C-alpha cells in the first residue's frame, strides 16, 4: 500500500480485473492468480485468447504458470534484482515512453546535493544512523524544497522508528506551490531523478539478474523486450501482484520497483495497463479503508500521535498538504468526527479531538505479540482471523495467547487460536498444560456472510453489497451485532462516569435501527453514515468534494463518500456487464473514489488531452464541452483544461496543473523517486531476505537495514545466514503459499468435507534433485525444521519446484502450503510454525515467502521429543556462530554527513 501510495497517490490497485482483457501483455509476479483469484483470472484468460502475452515470474510452476505463455522461475526473495534489471534494461536501451516519463513523472526533478546513493555507499543511502537504526531522510529531498508528507507526517519529536509515519493510503509529499522548483526537462542534469535512477540500477545487468535470480539471460531479456514491445502509445501492459511481493522484509520496495517499471513504460492510468494489487479475500481492502489497523482512521487519515502535540490545529497542519486533494484534510477529519460524535462534536470543542486515543509506539500485531509474551497484554479480541496458524511464528503466537488474562475469539468454527490451551503442538509437547494455562477463553460463534447484510470491498476498490439469505443459528451473531451491542452495553455502564478517559465513549453517536428477533443493527444505516450527509438537512452527499471543515457535514469515511448518493445504496446495484454499454460496467456496485474504476485515467490522454491512440482511448478532453469525458469517471477535475497552469497562490487541487494526472500527489506527478514516506529508501535496492543462504552480490549491506527484527526475544530465534558457520543446518530456501482448495489459515475450509477432501493433507513440494540429495520419497513423509520449530508433511516430488543455480551454487527450495492446523476434518503441521517475525519496516508485514530450513525424511518426533529435536539442531547451528558473533553492517556503518 505505501508503495502505490507514495508512487501514485493512493494505496490501492490502480485498475480493475475486468480491464485486464485489454492488456497486450500481463506480467504476473509475486502472485499465483489462477489459484488464489480464480474468478478474476478469467480476465487474464480473456486477454490470452485475444493474443496477449501472459508472463508468470515465480519460483514455482503453479496453476497460473500452466496458463501462461511464459514461465520464468526465480529464487524466492530475488524480485527486486529481477525488476531492477528490467528498469536498467529499459533505461540502457532507451525503451521507455519518453513523453509520458517527462510529463507525468518526477523524472526531471533535481534532488539535493547531499543525497548519496547505495552505489556509492555500498548498499546504504545517505542519512543512516546506526544508533537510531533509521534514516534521516532530509538528504533525500527535492532540491530547494521543504518536504512535507501528504498524510501521515510524523510530528516533530515523535519517534518514528516504528513506521507509523508513512500511512497506508495517500502518502505523497507536500510541496509548496505544486511544482518542484528545480527540474530539467531534458532529463540530463546529473542530479535529476532520471539520472539518479540510471546510476542506481546500472549494475543490474542481465548477467547479474541471471546470477542473483537463477533464471537465464535469454528468459530475462525476453521479458524486457516483450514488455517494451507491448507498451507505448498503441499498446499497454499490466502487472498483477499479491503477497508473493508484500510478504518480504523488502515487500514495499519490491512493489515500488514494479511501479517504476510501469512509470517508465507509461502504463499507469491506461486501459490494459496499471498495477493490480491482488488482495480482496474477505474484504481486506475494506479493512484498511475502514481500518482495523492501529495507526490509521477511516480513509487513511493518520491516528494522532502523542499528547505533547495533541491539539487539533497542529494535527491538521501536520497532515494537510498545500496541494492536491489532501489539501482538504480538515474537511475529511471534521466530517469523520461528526460521524463518531454527532452533535457532541462542534468546531468550538475541536470536534472532541482531545478524546481520541493517541499512539506513541508500534501497536502492530507482531509487536503486540512480543508484549504479550512479556506479560504486558491482559486481553485480546480475535475476530475472523486465526493467528495460531496464519501468522508467522505460530508457536510464539500460541505461547503469547497463553499469557493473557482473557481472550475473545469470534469465528464460525472453533479455530486453533481458540483451542490452543487444550489442543495445540505445545500441549502435545508439554510446553503448555491446560490445567495451568490461566487464559480465560470466550468463544463467540459468528454468523457467516450469508446470514447478514453487508458489503465486501474487493481488490479493485469495488464495494459490493450482499443481502442476508437466512437467519443465523442459535448463538451465532454478526460482527455488526457484536460490536454494536458491546458498544451499547459499555456506554450504559459508563453513563454515569466522570472520568476524562470515558468522555469518548459517552459522546459516541451510537444510534442505529435494529430489526429481527436478535436486534440485528441495520447495515445499510451504517453504510449511509459512512457515505455521509449534510447535518442540517439530512441530504445525502454525492462525494468528497462536498465535505466541509465547519461541522456541517457528517461522513464516516471520505473516500467512500457518495456510496449512498441520492439515497440509493450504490454498492447494491447489480446490473450485469452484458447489459451495460461498456466493459467498464459502471452500474455494477460502486468503487472508491467517486466510483472511478481505473485510477489516474487522465494519464490515458496525452498532455494536450487527446488519447495517446485510438486503440487505447479511455478518458479524453472534450474541448467543445469544456470537460473530460470517456468510458469512466475522469480521475481529474472534470472541467480542468489540459493546459491549465496554477497561479502562484493556488491551493489544494487547484495547485495541480492540467497535465499532471496524479492528483493525490503534491506535485501531481507519479514518483519514480520517493523523497519521503518510506522507511528504507527513495529507490528500491536488492537486499537479501532476513534468512538467506546467499550474501548480497551487489553490496556488503546484506539485508534491508531498516527491517524489523527481534534481538532479544527467545521465542523468535533466527537461522544463521549466508555462509555463516551453522548455516548448513538450514541450507534450503523455504517458501509458504496457498492452494485454491483451502482458505488462508484454514478456519473456513478445513471444517468443510467438500473442500477438505480436495486437499486432505499437509504436504511439501520438492524437486527430484532435492529428494535425491536428502532421501525423500514421493508419497512418503518429511520433517521440515528451522530454529523456531519443526513440522511433518507428506512429500510431493515434482518438477514444478525447480532447483536453481545461484551465485554458482545449486539451490533447492522447499514449498509449503500453510493451511493446516490441529483442528478440523483435515489436520496437519502448520507451516508458520517454521517462520520468523522479521518484518517490512513500512507495513510490519512478515517475511514468510523466503526463509531457510532443513528437511529430512520421516515423521517428526512426538511429544517432548519435538522441542528437544528443534533445540538440539538450533544449538548445533548457533553454537558455532557464537564463536564468530555476527554483526550486520547496518549496526556500525554511519552515512550521515
Amino acid at each position, binding site marked *: 500500500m505505501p508503495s502505490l501510495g507514495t508512487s501514485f497517490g493512493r494505496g490501492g490497485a490502480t485498475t480493475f480485473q475486468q480491464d485486464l482483457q485489454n492488456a497486450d501483455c500481463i506480467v504476473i509476479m509475486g502472485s499465483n492468480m489462477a489459484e488464489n483469484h480464480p474468478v478474476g483470472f478469467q480476465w487474464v484468460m480473456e486477454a490470452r485468447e485475444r493474443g496477449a502475452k501472459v508472463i508468470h515470474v515465480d519460483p514455482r510452476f503453479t496453476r497460473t504458470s*500452466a496458463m501462461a505463455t511464459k514461465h520464468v522461475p526465480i529464487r524466492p526473495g530475488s524480485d527486486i534484482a529481477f525488476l531492477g534489471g528490467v528498469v536498467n534494461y529499459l533505461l540502457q536501451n532507451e525503451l521507455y515512453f519518453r513523453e509520458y516519463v517527462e510529463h507525468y513523472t518526477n523524472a526531471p526533478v533535481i534532488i539535493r546535493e547531499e543525497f548519496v546513493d547505495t552505489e556509492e555507499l555500498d548498499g546504504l543511502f545517505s542519512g543512516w544512523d546506526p544508533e537510531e537504526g533509521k534514516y534521516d531522510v532530509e538528504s533525500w529531498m527535492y532540491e530547494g524544497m521543504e518536504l512535507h508528507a501528504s498524510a501521515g507526517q510524523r510530528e516533530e519529536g515523535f519517534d518514528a522508528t516504528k513506521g507509523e509515519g508513512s500511512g497506508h493510503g495517500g502518502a505523497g509529499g507536500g510541496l509548496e506551490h505544486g511544482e518542484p522548483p528545480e527540474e530539467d526537462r531534458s532529463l540530463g542534469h546529473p542530479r535529476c531523478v532520471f539520472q539518479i535512477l540510471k546510476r542506481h540500477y546500472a549494475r543490474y545487468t542481465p548477467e547479474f539478474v541471471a546470477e542473483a535470480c537463477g533464471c537465464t539471460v535469454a528468459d530475462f531479456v525476453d521479458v524486457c523486450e516483450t514488455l517494451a514491445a507491448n507498451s507505448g502509445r498503441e499498446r499497454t501492459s499490466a502487472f498483477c501482484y499479491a503477497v508473493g511481493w508484500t510478504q518480504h522484509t523488502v515487500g514495499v520496495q519490491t512493489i515500488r520497483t514494479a511501479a517504476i517499471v510501469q512509470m517508465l513504460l507509461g502504463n499507469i492510468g491506461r486501459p490494459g495497463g496499471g498495477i493490480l494489487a491482488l488482495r480482496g479475500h474477505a474484504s481486506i481492502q475494506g479493512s484498511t479503508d475502514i481500518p482495523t489497523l492501529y495507526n490509521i482512521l477511516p480513509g487513511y487519515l493518520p491516528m494522532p500521535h502523542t499528547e505533547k502535540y495533541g491539539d487539533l490545529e497542529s494535527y491538521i497542519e501536520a497532515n494537510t498538504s498545500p496541494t492536491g486533494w489532501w489539501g482538504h484534510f480538515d474537511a475529511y477529519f471534521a466530517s469523520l468526527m461528526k460521524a463518531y460524535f454527532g452533535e457532541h462534536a462542534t468546531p468550538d470543542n475541536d470536534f472532541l479531538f482531545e478524546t481520541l486515543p493517541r499512539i506513541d509506539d508500534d501497536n502492530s500485531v507482531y509487536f503486540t505479540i512480543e508484549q504479550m509474551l512479556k506479560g504486558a497484554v491482559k486481553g485480546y479480541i480475535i475476530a475472523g482471523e486465526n493467528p495460531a496458524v496464519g501468522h508467522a511464528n505460530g508457536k510464539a503466537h500460541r505461547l503469547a495467547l497463553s499469557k493473557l488474562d482473557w481472550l475473545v475469539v469470534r469465528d464460525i468454527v472453533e479455530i486453533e487460536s481458540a483451542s490452543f490451551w487444550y489442543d495445540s503442538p505445545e500441549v502435545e509437547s508439554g510446553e503448555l498444560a491446560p490445567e495451568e494455562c490461566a487464559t480465560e477463553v470466550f468463544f463467540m460463534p459468528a454468523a457467516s456472510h450469508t446470514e447478514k447484510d453487508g458489503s465486501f470491498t474487493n481488490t479493485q476498490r469495488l464495494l459490493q453489497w450482499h443481502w442476508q439469505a437466512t437467519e443465523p443459528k442459535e448463538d451465532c451473531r454478526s460482527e455488526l451485532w457484536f460490536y454494536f451491542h458491546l458498544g451499547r452495553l459499555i456506554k450504559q455502564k459508563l453513563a454515569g462516569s466522570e472520568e476524562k478517559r470515558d468522555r469518548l465513549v459517552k459522546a459516541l453517536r451510537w444510534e442505529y435501527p435494529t430489526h429481527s428477533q436478535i436486534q440485528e443493527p441495520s447495515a445499510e444505516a451504517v453504510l449511509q453514515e459512512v457515505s455521509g450527509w449534510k447535518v442540517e438537512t439530512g441530504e445525502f452527499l454525492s462525494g468528497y468534494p462536498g465535505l466541509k471543515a465547519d461541522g456541517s457535514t457528517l461522513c464516516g469515511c471520505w473516500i467512500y463518500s457518495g456510496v449512498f448518493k441520492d439515497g440509493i445504496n450504490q454498492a447494491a446495484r447489480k446490473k450485469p456487464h452484458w447489459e451495460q454499454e461498456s466493459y467498464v460496467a459502471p452500474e455494477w456496485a460502486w468503487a472508491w473514489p467517486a466510483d472511478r474504476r481505473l485510477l489516474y485515467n487522465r494519464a490515458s490522454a496525452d498532455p494536450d488531452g487527446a488519447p495517446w491512440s485510438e486503440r487505447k482511448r479511455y478518458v479524453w478532453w472534450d474541448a467543445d464541452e469544456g470537460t473530460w469525458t470517456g468510458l469512466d469517471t475522469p480521475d481529474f477535475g472534470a472541467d480542468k483544461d489540459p493546459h491549465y497552469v496554477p497561479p502562484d497562490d493556488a491551493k489544494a487541487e487547484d495547485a495541480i496543473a492540467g497535465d499532471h494526472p496524479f492528483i493525490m500527489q503534491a506535485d501531481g506527478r507519479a514518483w519514480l523517486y520517493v523523497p519521503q514516506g518510506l522507511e528504507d529508501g527513495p529507490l528500491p535496492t536488492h537486499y537479501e531476505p532476513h534468512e538467506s543462504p546467499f550474501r548480497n552480490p551487489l553490496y556488503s549491506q546484506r539485508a534491508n537495514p531498516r527491517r524489523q527484527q527481534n534481538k532479544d526475544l527467545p521465542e523468535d530465534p533466527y537461522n544463521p545466514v549466508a555462509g555463516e558457520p551453522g548455516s548448513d543446518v538450514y541450507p534450503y530456501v523455504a517458501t509458504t503459499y496457498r492452494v485454491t482448495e483451502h482458505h488462508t489459515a484454514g478456519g473456513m475450509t478445513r471444517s468443510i*468435507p467438500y*473442500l477438505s477432501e480436495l486437499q486432505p493433507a499437509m504436504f511439501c513440494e520438492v524437486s527430484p534433485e532435492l529428494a535425491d540429495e536428502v532421501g525423500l520419497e514421493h508419497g512418503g513423509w518429511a520433517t521440515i525444521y528451522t530454529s523456531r520449530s519443526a513440522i511433518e508433511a507428506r512429500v510431493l516430488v515434482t518438477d514444478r519446484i525447480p532447483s536453481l543455480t545461484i551465485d554458482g551454487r545449486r539451490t533447492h527450495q522447499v514449498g509449503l502450503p500453510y493451511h493446516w492446523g490441529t483442528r478440523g476434518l483435515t489436520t496437519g503441521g502448520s507451516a508458520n510454525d517454521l517462520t520468523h517475525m522479521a518484518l517490512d519496516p513500512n507495513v510490519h508485514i512478515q517475511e514468510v515467502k523466503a526463509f531457510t530450513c532443513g528437511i529430512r525424511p520421516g515423521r517428526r518426533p512426538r511429544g517432548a521429543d519435538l522441542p528437544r529435536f528443534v533445540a538440539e539442531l538450533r544449538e548445533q547451528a548457533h553454537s558455532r556462530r557464537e564463536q564468530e558473533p555476527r554483526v550486520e553492517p547496518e549496526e556500525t556503518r554511519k552515512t550521515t554527513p
Partner: protein
Amino acid sequence: METTGVPAGWEAYGDERKERVGFFTDTSVCIGCKACEVACKEWNLIPEDGLVWSGESYDNTSQLDANSWRHVAFVEQRKPLRVGEDGEPGIDRGDPDGDALRWLMSSDVCKHCTHAACLDVCPTGSLFRTEFGTVVVQEDICNGCGYCVPACPFGVLDQRKIPSTLNTGHKPDLPALGPLERGEKEDGRVWKCTLCYDRLKGGHEPACAKACPTNSIQFGPLDELRERADARLAKLDAEGWNGAQLYGRDPDDGVGGFGAFFLLLDDPEVYGLPPDPVVTTRDLPEMWGNMLVAATAMVAGMAAMFLGGRR
C-alpha cells in the same frame, strides 16, 4: 449394430423431445480450480468421498465414482505447451536447463453416450434416456444389481458406499440421498452425473458449467457445441498447441459420439481415458445371433440323436 449418432429412445419422446444438450469441456482453459467438483456436490448433496491424499499431483479425487461426478485430472509433463512450425517449442516454458514443462488439467464427467451400454443392460429400467438426450439413473428404481458398472467403457458408474466417516457413528455433516434401507453401511445403488436434470427442467445450466470461472465447461445444444469445438481446435492448431485434439466429438465413433465431449491437449490415455471406447453392447445382437445358431444346432443334434436312436 450401426452407430447412427442419435440416441435410441430419445426420438420416442415425440412432441416432448427437447434439443439434445451436453457439455463441451475445453481443457485448454481449465485452471484446475475444482469449482466444478464442489458445485456438483453442493447441488446434488453428494457425500464426501474419502479424505485420502493420493500424491497424484493435485488430484485427490482420483476417479469418477458414485460420490464424485466431476473429477479434475492433473498431468505434469515434460513437454512444451505449444510448438512452432518446425516442431520446436514455440512458447518458452521451461526451467533454465531448457526442458519444457506443462501441467494439463481436465474436468472429467459421465459422457452421456449416444449409445449407452449402461442403458442397454439395466434390467429394471432405472437408467433411462431423458427428453434432453441425457442418461439418468432413477434412484427410487435402481436395485443395485450392478450390471451397468462393467458395461460402461469409461468406468463412470459405481455403486455407492457410504464413506467411512459415517460408518464410525460420527454424525454426517451432509445428508446421503435416500433412505438407508439396506443397512447402515451400504447404499448399493448406482449414482452418476445427471447433467443436472432437475436444473435443465428449470431452464438452468448444470451447476458445474455455471461455476466454472473460465468457461472451460460449456453447456448448450450439442450440435452448437460441436461447431464451437471445431472452431476452437482450428484456432489452437493455428497457434501451435502441442497435441490438441477433440475426444468424443465424432458421431461415428464407437459410442456414436459423446453427449459430453472434450478438447484435450494430449492423447486420451494420458488423462486416464480409453483411447477408442466402444459401446460394450455393440456385439450383443451378433452374439445372440451366434448363440441362437449354436442353440439351434445343439437342439437339432440332440433331436437327431433321439430320432436316430428309435429306429
